[in-house]
């Protein structure tokens, strides 16, 4: 028997997130309780699954390595009470270098703000860790707009 499962991703593993960040030129700072943003909300954006925390307040933060001007990502508790965090950030002006690290570049296309690249690599790191634990040989690679993890044993 073979099967295909589609999963609603929850960010719960900070070690895997740190590895994904490192790969993308970012740094997860555990325990950093504020994240850098524009500073005044104009009410144009908020992650749908994040609790309504005061803007700029978080439990952990992600910064862009070597770019002190870039805005940061905050990890905020999920609003549905489930374990894990939602990612919140200010994408104004491309977050001064943040968006290009966490989004796929699609030339000529206007994209809604997302952190798909970061989420994809986070899931890949979780998968690598678990499948190696189960004795698989694992190979993860970037494809156009997605990440694939191949496991064999």
């Amino acid at each position, binding site marked *: *028997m*073979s099967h*295909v*499962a589609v*999963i609603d991703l929850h960010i719960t593993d900070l070690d895997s997130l740190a590895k994904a960040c490192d790969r993308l030129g970012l740094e997860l700072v555990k325990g950093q309780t504020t994240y850098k943003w524009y500073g005044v909300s104009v009410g144009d954006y908020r992650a749908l699954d994040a609790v309504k925390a005061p803007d700029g307040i978080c439990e952990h933060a992600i910064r862009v390595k070597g770019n002190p001007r870039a805005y940061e990502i905050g990890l905020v508790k999920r609003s549905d009470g489930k374990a894990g965090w939602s990612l919140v950030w200010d994408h104004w002006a491309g977050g001064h270098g943040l968006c290009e690290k966490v989004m796929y570049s699609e030339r000529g296309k206007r994209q809604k703000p997302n952190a798909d690249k970061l989420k994809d690599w986070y899931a890949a790191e979780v998968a690598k860790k678990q499948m190696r634990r189960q004795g698989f040989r694992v190979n993860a690679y970037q494809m156009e707009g997605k990440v694939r993890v191949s496991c064999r044993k």
Partner: protein
Amino acid sequence: MQEVEITIEGGVPKVEVKCVKGSECKRLTRELEKKLGEVKSDKPTKEMYEQTRQTNRVGH
């Protein structure tokens, strides 16, 4: 050989198990699926249906 392919696009992981027979298939990815989040859908593949049809033919 056991094969598991995980494709993640738009922050949505899709876990596909190949070449694994019986209940071992589900057991193989149970822990991974739990660590990634919540399973939204879980479908047997065409390969499984082919096996079922073959079994039926033998039965008749």
